[in-house]
């Protein structure tokens, strides 16, 4: 009989699988994991925290009740395991991690819960970024936070789910801004994840770190320059991705397996068999 690991170790594996779910598929993964673990008591103890961590990593975005814009679920806005700050309205919203919706409950943020030393800049950046995501992302979701020490964090999260066509994808960028000595130092991390699963499992996973500087002036102009810098950097990155794709498809793929042999014709197996062409192949090449 094979060595069997403890229940706690099995739970760790189950949670790890849940956190590795592609965008839009955590419920399907939970269903699978529930059947494999076969221990609902154990699973229910950690399911909520697994969903919470997943939603934050995904920067899951959904519409706020009675407001016409979405709020992102992120570590930057988390005030408690199920409450999240909306820096724009200065309200704190309750979020149901398993249902992935805002419950409708909210309250005004306490002064201790928000930083507003550079609120005029945060607000201007918020407007400029929202203009950018509205124009370039079909699923336009972005939240701009002020954090301790006047650091500003811009979170952009776009998702597209098409399970009926067996694919899902996200684009997530996080830009951290430090305003100091008349300059804004920006550090960005851009991630894309695409999952295709019609009779197979194909995943694209990309990660890019960026660094850009912008000069500070009045809030509105600064907001515009920042959004412009982000737009240009992300645009350049997407172009670089495209070039890589072309190379992968044209060069790398072809050098793995040709479309046809060099003769330009399909193989004549009868000839190979009857002529017994043995030992004349390049069998020592890798």
């Amino acid at each position, binding site marked *: 009989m094979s060595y069997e690991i403890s229940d706690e170790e099995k739970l760790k594996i189950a949670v790890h699988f849940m956190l590795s779910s592609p965008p839009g598929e955590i419920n399907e993964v939970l269903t699978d994991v529930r059947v494999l673990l076969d221990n609902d008591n154990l699973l229910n103890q950690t399911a909520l925290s697994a969903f919470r961590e997943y939603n934050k990593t995904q920067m899951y975005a959904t519409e706020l009740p009675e407001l016409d814009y979405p709020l992102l679920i992120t570590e930057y806005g988390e005030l408690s395991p199920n409450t999240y700050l909306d820096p724009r309205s200065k309200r704190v919203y309750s979020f149901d991690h398993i249902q992935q919706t805002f419950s409708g409950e909210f309250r005004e943020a306490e002064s201790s819960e928000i930083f507003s030393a550079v609120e005029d800049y945060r607000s201007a950046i918020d407007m400029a970024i929202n203009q950018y995501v509205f124009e370039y992302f079909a699923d336009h979701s972005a939240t701009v936070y002020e954090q301790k020490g006047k650091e500003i964090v811009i979170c952009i999260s776009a998702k597209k789910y098409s399970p009926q066509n067996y694919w899902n994808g996200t684009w997530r960028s996080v830009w951290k801004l430090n305003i100091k000595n008349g300059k804004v130092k920006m550090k960005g991390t851009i991630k894309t994840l695409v999952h295709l699963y019609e*009779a197979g*499992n194909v995943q694209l996973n*990309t990660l890019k770190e960026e660094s850009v500087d912008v000069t500070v002036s009045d809030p509105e102009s600064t907001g515009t320059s920042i959004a412009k810098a982000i737009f240009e950097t992300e645009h350049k990155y997407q172009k670089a991705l495209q070039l890589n794709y072309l190379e992968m498809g044209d060069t790398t793929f072809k050098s793995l397996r040709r479309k046809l042999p060099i003769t330009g014709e399909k193989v004549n197996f009868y000839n190979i068999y009857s002529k017994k062409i043995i030992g004349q192949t390049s069998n020592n090449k890798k």
Partner: protein
Amino acid sequence: MTDEQLDCALDLNRRLPPTNVEDNLAGLIDLVPDLTEDLLTSIDQPLKVATDNGYGRDYLLCDYNRDGDSFRSPWSNQYFPKLKDGALPSKKLRDLEVQANEMFDVYRDLYYEGGVSSVYMWDTEDGFSACVLIKKVGEQNVKKPIQGVWDSIHVIEVTDKGRVATYKITTTVMLSMITEQKESGSINLSGSITRQSETDLKFEDQSSHLINMGKVVEDMESKVRNTLDQIYFGKTFDIVNDLRSMNGLKVDRTRKEEQQKVFQNIVNSGNN
């Protein structure tokens, strides 16, 4: 219960990152140890390469040439590490297996210009089965920074039906493209697709089986290669462009409307 568990394990395997397929399989086995044999048979892994030192040739490892912890070389028909009474194909089937390995070696050279291939056969009630494996690791260096790896796993069930034989082929091709570069950062495009088909072909003697298997594998690989091309280098990137538009959503909308106008004009002029 076990059937449902196997279905869930396979569903999970289609969702977890394919680049971690070995860890995923280990995790699944740890979760449900009773399913170990089923999981090892149903979940494809990137092929490992071993060397038959006696013959000076490489061969591929899979569940079909495994007995315990040893693997049988298709060249010498011996197990490494040495195994007493390891499972072997019948003499008649071994002769066919030898010829199949030689034939697919040529096929591999023609299409892959490198790489390693192996064919393993086993007797079944109404015929025999064969697995045809091919692995190609692309060249990677400063000038070619993208690492590509191709694994073909074909399992063919051959059923003798008198003058005709049925060849049922199940194919999985695993393809990965990984690179790390200054302008485009880290890119990992990995995964596999699986296809099946069934063909009836005439057969006179054992040599027909070889030729028929060759055709069946070649046809399947051609189709799968096309699909991989479309999915990997077409569809995945289309989705990235759906997430973030290169030209802006307004431009996209205008272009789409113009395209529809042109299409409508064509339809209208066709109707006149």
